[in-house]
């Protein structure tokens, strides 16, 4: 093994197993299968122990051995270790005995789970000698690449669908990133970026850096397990866009079992989609192991990927772990966002509404038994998708600075407690 590769062994094709050197490459030359990082678990076992963890800082990098960089992290060193909240009031709304919310709406620094994948991708990009980073994004990834690149002194190009939420566009521009809006949906942005990545020598986090980038998602599973005192959750509900997060959460749990850090009860993983872009959920419901691409039409723009690259693997994970998949309409997404906000004081973006709303459906249909315990992965912050709830959450009352007007307002509403 190369001494410069840390705990990594090689890149390996998920389809045919062919191995490749640990470079900026993402596709098997033979069958186009995605490349994934292979690790030296015997070596990892020696240093990643519960004793060692007790000494480490509360960031995702405490699981550094299982994240694909050769040296120490240099970008996004403060990312992760977001709260896992016991959500008793939400559990009642969901109709289940116990619910937990993994709250990446407050991930550092850009308020979505994407900071996890980006800190890995950018740390690795630096190791490989890149100075310019780029991404195709539905918004959150763009924000994270822009912010983390800025803090590392790297140049960044982000490519987004031109019709994204205003908040997400401003949230990339502020960091000085070069933002390119593409007149098309995400799948078209993605296709263009694949062609751009072949032409320019940049580290595209979700194209040529994808094998490293995608592994960052596992940290969400590591943290959930540790926060539950190494007892893996019975059920985890994960939002699906490309399906990558779901497969990596599953992989994260499996690695903890393999290393003897977590108990070996097999956790069930469920996938959530917006009905307006539900190729994976639709395939699951039809019992198919392949999906039909769709043209997205949903308020959950961060999940609007009609050709999900990891769709096959997400279907496989749900099937193998006894999980299921469901999807929710735009109105159901807003209702679920409101429920999470009103029950737990957490304002999530539309994707979180997809997770919570789909979980409710999975519980109602018995796919997640009401006597069980569930973890919901909330991946982004509601302040970024204000457009989606504008006009759906009521309006403030407006009065003159007069006590009389206030009393009239109170008297007009019999539900208000005056004591």
């Amino acid at each position: 093994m190369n001494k410069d590769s840390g705990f990594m062994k090689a890149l390996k094709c998920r389809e045919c197993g062919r191995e490749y050197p640990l470079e900026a490459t993402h596709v098997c030359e033979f069958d186009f299968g995605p490349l994934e990082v292979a690790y030296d678990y015997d070596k990892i076992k020696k240093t990643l122990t519960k004793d060692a963890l007790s000494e480490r800082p509360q960031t995702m990098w405490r699981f550094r051995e299982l994240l694909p960089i050769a040296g120490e992290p240099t970008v996004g060193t403060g990312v992760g270790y977001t709260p896992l909240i016991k959500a008793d009031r939400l559990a009642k709304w969901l109709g289940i005995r116990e619910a937990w919310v993994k709250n990446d709406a407050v991930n550092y620094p850009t308020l979505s789970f994407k900071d996890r994948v980006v800190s890995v991708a950018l740390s690795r990009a630096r190791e490989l000698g890149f100075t310019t980073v780029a991404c195709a994004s539905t918004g959150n990834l763009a924000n994270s690449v822009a912010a983390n690149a800025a803090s590392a002194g790297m140049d960044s190009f982000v490519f987004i669908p031109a019709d994204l939420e205003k908040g997400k566009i401003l949230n990339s521009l502020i960091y000085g990133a070069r933002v390119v809006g593409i007149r098309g949906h995400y799948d078209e942005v993605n296709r263009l970026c694949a062609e751009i990545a072949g032409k320019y020598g940049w580290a595209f986090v979700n194209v040529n850096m994808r094998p490293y980038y995608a592994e960052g998602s596992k940290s969400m599973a590591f943290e959930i397990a540790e926060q539950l005192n190494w007892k893996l959750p019975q059920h985890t509900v994960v939002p699906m866009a490309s399906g990558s997060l779901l497969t990596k959460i599953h992989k994260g749990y499996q690695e903890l079992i393999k290393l003897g850090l977590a108990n070996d009860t097999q956790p069930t993983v469920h996938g959530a989609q917006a009905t307006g872009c539900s190729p994976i959920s639709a395939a699951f419901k039809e019992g198919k192991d392949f999906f039909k691409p769709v043209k997205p039409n949903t308020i959950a723009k961060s999940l609007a990927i009609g050709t999900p690259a990891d769709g096959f693997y997400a279907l496989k994970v749900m099937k193998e772990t006894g999980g299921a998949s469901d999807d929710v309409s735009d109105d159901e997404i807003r209702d679920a966002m409101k429920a999470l906000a009103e029950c737990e004081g957490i304002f999530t973006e539309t994707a979180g509404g997809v997770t919570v709303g789909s979980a409710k459906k999975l519980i109602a249909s018995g796919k997640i038994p009401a006597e069980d315990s569930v973890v919901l992965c909330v991946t982004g912050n509601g302040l970024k998708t204000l457009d989606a709830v504008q006009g759906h959450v009521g309006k403030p009352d407006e009065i003159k600075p007069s006590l009389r007007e206030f009393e009239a307002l109170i008297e007009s509403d019999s539900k208000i407690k005056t004591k």
Partner: protein
Amino acid sequence: MASTIRIPTPLRKLTNDQETIGVESDTVGGAIEELEGKFPGIKERLVDEEGEIRRFVNVYVNEEDIRFLENQDTPLKDGDDVSIIPAIAGG
């Protein structure tokens, strides 16, 4: 009658580093056969044992995914652009 196929990086070893190849065929399936004639071995990279496009290969004609068109029967006309692109992760 000619359309242009843009060759993705992983396949350029087979096309002697040519980024684009002109083809005369009038369908996507025909164009793949034509490519195979010029660059033996390229077809098995794109098509599986059953003759279907591999699941991690996306083919576009003028920016449209052929799965929204007529798959390998999708017609090609003069000046069409065909892109072959690996599936990519989310964002």
